[in-house]
C-alpha cells in the first residue's frame, strides 16, 4: 500500500504504545463484560497494571527521543487518516491518570467486590467496566491528533462517566445523572458543530494541519466559541457548574474520585489543546480574560458555597467547582506571555501542575470522605468527632490533600499557584494573583474546619460502625502524598511538558 511508506517515516519508535494505551483498557472492558461478576474485577485489576506499565513506557519513549511520540493509524496519512500524537502535555496527563486510576482501583476493591455467594452484582460489574472505559477515553483525549476522533473520545467519556453518578440507584442520584447527561450532550453537540464548521472552512480535522491553515476569521471564531462553550459545560466552569455538585457528591466515593479527579480534566485538556495548539493564531487576550474571569468567579463562588456546606461530600464537590476555576486562570497568563514575546511554558506548566495536583488531591479527598462515611455512617461536617482516632491515616491524607488545594509548600498546588502568581505579576495581571490568594485563604478555612472537627475526641463508648481495611487507607494516603510531594516537580527540567510541542506543529503537509 503506497501511503504506508511515508507513514512509516512518521510513526515514531514507541508509537504503537499509544494505540495500546487506548485499546488495552477497552479490550479489558469487553473481556470483563463477557466474564462478568468477580472475574470482571480481576480483569480490571490486571488491566490497571498493564495500563500503568504502558503509560510509563510512553513516558520513557518520549524522554528517550525528546520528540513527540506519533502513530499513523492504518498507514493512512492525515488528513485522510488519523494520527495519534503524544507530546509532553499528553504524557504528563497519561501518567497522572494512570496513577490515580490505579489508586482508585486499589481503594475500590473493598467497596465494589462482588459479594460471595452471588454470581454477579449490578454495581460492582458496572463500576469496573466503566472505570476501564473512563481510562481508555481519557487516554484517547490525551493522544488523539484529530478533532473528530476527539469528539468520539468525548462521547465515550460521557457515556462512561454518567452512569457512575447513579451507581447506587437512588432516585435523586438518577436525577443528577440525567442533568449531567444533558449538560454533557449539549457540550458534545456544540463541540461537534464547531468541528463541522472547521472542516467546512479548512478541509481537515488533523490538529497540526488545521493549526497551519486556520486564520482569524468568522468561521474560526465561531468554531472556537462553540467548541470552548461545549467543553466548558462538560468541565463545569462557572456558571455551567450547576450539574456538578449533586452529581459528584451523590456518586459512591470511588466513582466521585473518578469523576471529580479525572473526568473533568478530559474536557479541560481538550479546551487547552484547542486554545494553544489549534487556535493559537485566533485567540485574543480579551477572550482569554473572559475565560479567566469565569474561572475567578468559580473560585470565589465555589469556595464560599463550599464553606456553607453541612455535608462533607458536598463540601468537596463545591471545592472542585472552585478548583476548576484555577485551571482557567492559565489562559490569559499564557496569552499574556506570548503577546509579550516570552515563552508561555511557565503559565502552561502552572496550569498542568494545578490539574495534576487537583486530580490526585481530589481523588484522595473523595475517597477519604467515603471512608469517613463508612466509619461514621454519615458525613455531616458538624459531627466528625472520633474520626481521627479511628482513621488516623485517612485524616492525615485529607489534611495533606487539603494542603495541596490550599497551596502550602511543598505541595503540587503550591508550585502551581507560585508559577501562576509569578506569571501574573510578570505580565502585570496582578488581579488574578489576588483572586488566587483569596481563594487559597477560603480553601484553608474549610479544610481547617474539617480537620479540626475530626480531631475532637469521640464520645465515650463510641465504636466505628465498620472497620475499613488498611489498604484502602493506604491508597488514599498514597494519592494524597503524590499531590503533596508534587512540588518536587520543581527539580524537573522546566520544559518537560513542552517536549514535542513545536515539533508537532511542523508536521509535514501532504
Amino acid at each position, binding site marked *: 500500500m503506497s501511503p504506508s511508506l511515508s507513514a512509516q517515516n512518521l510513526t515514531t519508535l514507541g508509537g*504503537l504504545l499509544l494505540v495500546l494505551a487506548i485499546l488495552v483498557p477497552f479490550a479489558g472492558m469487553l473481556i470483563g463484560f463477557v466474564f462478568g461478576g468477580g472475574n470482571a474485577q480481576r480483569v480490571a485489576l490486571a488491566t490497571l497494571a498493564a495500563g500503568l506499565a504502558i503509560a510509563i513506557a510512553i513516558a520513557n519513549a518520549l524522554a528517550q527521543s525528546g520528540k513527540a511520540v506519533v502513530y499513523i493509524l492504518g498507514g493512512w496519512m492525515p488528513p485522510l487518516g488519523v494520527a495519534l500524537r503524544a507530546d509532553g502535555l499528553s504524557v504528563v496527563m497519561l501518567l497522572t491518570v494512570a496513577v490515580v486510576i490505579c489508586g482508585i482501583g486499589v481503594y475500590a476493591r473493598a467497596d465494589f467486590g462482588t459479594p460471595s455467594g452471588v454470581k454477579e452484582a*449490578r454495581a460492582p460489574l*458496572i463500576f469496573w467496566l466503566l472505570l476501564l472505559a473512563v481510562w481508555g477515553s481519557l487516554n484517547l483525549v490525551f493522544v488523539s491528533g484529530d478533532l473528530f476522533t476527539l469528539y468520539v473520545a468525548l462521547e465515550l467519556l460521557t457515556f462512561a462517566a454518567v452512569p457512575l453518578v447513579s451507581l447506587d440507584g437512588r432516585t435523586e442520584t438518577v436525577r443528577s445523572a440525567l442533568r449531567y447527561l444533558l449538560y454533557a450532550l449539549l457540550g458534545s453537540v456544540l463541540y461537534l458543530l464547531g468541528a463541522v464548521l472547521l472542516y467546512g472552512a479548512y478541509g481537515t480535522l488533523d490538529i497540526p494541519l488545521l493549526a497551519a491553515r486556520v486564520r482569524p476569521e468568522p468561521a474560526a471564531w465561531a468554531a472556537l466559541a462553540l467548541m470552548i462553550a461545549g467543553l466548558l459545560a462538560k468541565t463545569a466552569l462557572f456558571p455551567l457548574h450547576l450539574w456538578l455538585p449533586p452529581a459528584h457528591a451523590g456518586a459512591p466515593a470511588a466513582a466521585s474520585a473518578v469523576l471529580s479527579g479525572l473526568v473533568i480534566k478530559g474536557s479541560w485538556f481538550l479546551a487547552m489543546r484547542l486554545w494553544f495548539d489549534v487556535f493559537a493564531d485566533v485567540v485574543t487576550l480579551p477572550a482569554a480574560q473572559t475565560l479567566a474571569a469565569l474561572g475567578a468567579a468559580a473560585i470565589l463562588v465555589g469556595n464560599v458555597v463550599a464553606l456553607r456546606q453541612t455535608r462533607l461530600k458536598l463540601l468537596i464537590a463545591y471545592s472542585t467547582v472552585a478548583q476548576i476555576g484555577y485551571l482557567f486562570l492559565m489562559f490569559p497568563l499564557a496569552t499574556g506571555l506570548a503577546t509579550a514575546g516570552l515563552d508561555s511554558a511557565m503559565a502552561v506548566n502552572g496550569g498542568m501542575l494545578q490539574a495534576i495536583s487537583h486530580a490526585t488531591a481530589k481523588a484522595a479527598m473523595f475517597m477519604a470522605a467515603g471512608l469517613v462515611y463508612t466509619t461514621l455512617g454519615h458525613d455531616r461536617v458538624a459531627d466528625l468527632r472520633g474520626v481521627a482516632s479511628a482513621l488516623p491515616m485517612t485524616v492525615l491524607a485529607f489534611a495533606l490533600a487539603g494542603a495541596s488545594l490550599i497551596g502550602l509548600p511543598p505541595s503540587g498546588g503550591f508550585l502551581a499557584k507560585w508559577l501562576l502568581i509569578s506569571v501574573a505579576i510578570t505580565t502585570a495581571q496582578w488581579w488574578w494573583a489576588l483572586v488566587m490568594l483569596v481563594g487559597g485563604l477560603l480553601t484553608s478555612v474549610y479544610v481547617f474546619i474539617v480537620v479540626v472537627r475530626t480531631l475532637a475526641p469521640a464520645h465515650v463508648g463510641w465504636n466505628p460502625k465498620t472497620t475499613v481495611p488498611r489498604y484502602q487507607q493506604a491508597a488514599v494516603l498514597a494519592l494524597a502524598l503524590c499531590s503533596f510531594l508534587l512540588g518536587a516537580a520543581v527539580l524537573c527540567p522546566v520544559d518537560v511538558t513542552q517536549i514535542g510541542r513545536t515539533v508537532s506543529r511542523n508536521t509535514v503537509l501532504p
Partner: protein
Amino acid sequence: MTLALAVDIGLTLLILAMAAWTIAVRDTFASVIGFVTYGLLLTLVWVRLAAPDVALTEAAMGGGLTGALLIGAAARLRSTESASRTERPSVLTRTLAAVLSAAVTAALAICVLNLPDPAPTLAPAAAAQLGSTGVGNPVTAVLLAYRAMDTLLEAIVVLLALVGVWSLAHDRAWGGYPQLRSHADPDGILAYFARVMAPVGIIVGIYIFWIGADFPGGKFQGATILAAMWLLVIGAGLAHLPPVSQTWLRVLLVAGPLVFIVIGFAGLVTAEAVFAYPNGYAKPLILAIEIALMPTLVLALALLVAGAPQRMPPQ
C-alpha cells in the same frame, strides 16, 4: 431547475415548522409524533442533498428506532404528564433560551454562508484511495479503512450506552429479562403482522447490510432494521428478550469490537500498521469486521430500546 428549487424551499419550510412544533407542543405524545415526522422529512432532505447514506441512516434511526424508543418513553411518562406540566420553566428562562439559540443559529448561518466555495474537501482523496481498500462505497472506506478506529470506538460507545441503561436496573432484577412480560395475544393481529413482516424485513436488513460495501447502505442501517424486526417479534408476544446475564448474549455483544481489535492488530504483522489491511485482503477483512459487528449492533440497539432488566431471572 426551478421546480427542484421549489421542492427544496417547500421541504425547508416544512422541516422548520415541524421542528418548531416539536419544541413548542406541550403534550409529550404529540411532540414525539412531531419528532418522527421531522425525521421523515430529514430523510427527504438528505436525499435532496445527494447523501443517500445519511438518508438511509436517518430513515432507519431517526424515524424508526428512535421513534419507537421515544414512543415507549412517552407511554411510560403518560401518568406523570399532568404533574410535569406545572414544572415548566419560567418565561424569562424560555426567552433567554430562545434568544441564545437564535443567536447561535444566526452566527452559524453567517459562517456557513461565508464558507469558501468550492469547499475544501477530502472527498477526492477518499475516492482516489478507494482502490487499495477494495470496497466501492467511499463511505465504507472512510468508516472501515481511513478512520477504522473511530468506527471501532463508536461501536464501543453503543455498548457503553447499553451498560449505562442496564445500570439503571433494580439490584434485585440484575441478570433478569429487560422487559415486562409481554401480554400480546399470540393469535392476535399483531402476531400475524409480525409473522409476515419479520421474515421479509430480515431479508431487507441483510440486503441493506450486504450492499453497503459498494453502494449506500451498511452495517448500522442493516442492524437497525434487524433490531426493529426483532423488537416487532417480541412486541407481538412471539419471542422473549434474553436475560442480561446470558453468556451467549454477552459474547455476541462484545464479539464485534473484539474481532475488530484483533483484525486491527493483525495488520501490524501483515501490513506494517495497526488497522492496516494487507494488499488484496482489504475487502474480505472489512467484510469480516462488518459481519462480526452486525450481531453486536443488532443486539445492542434492540436492548437499548428494550431498557433495563426488570424481571427476575428464573431460579
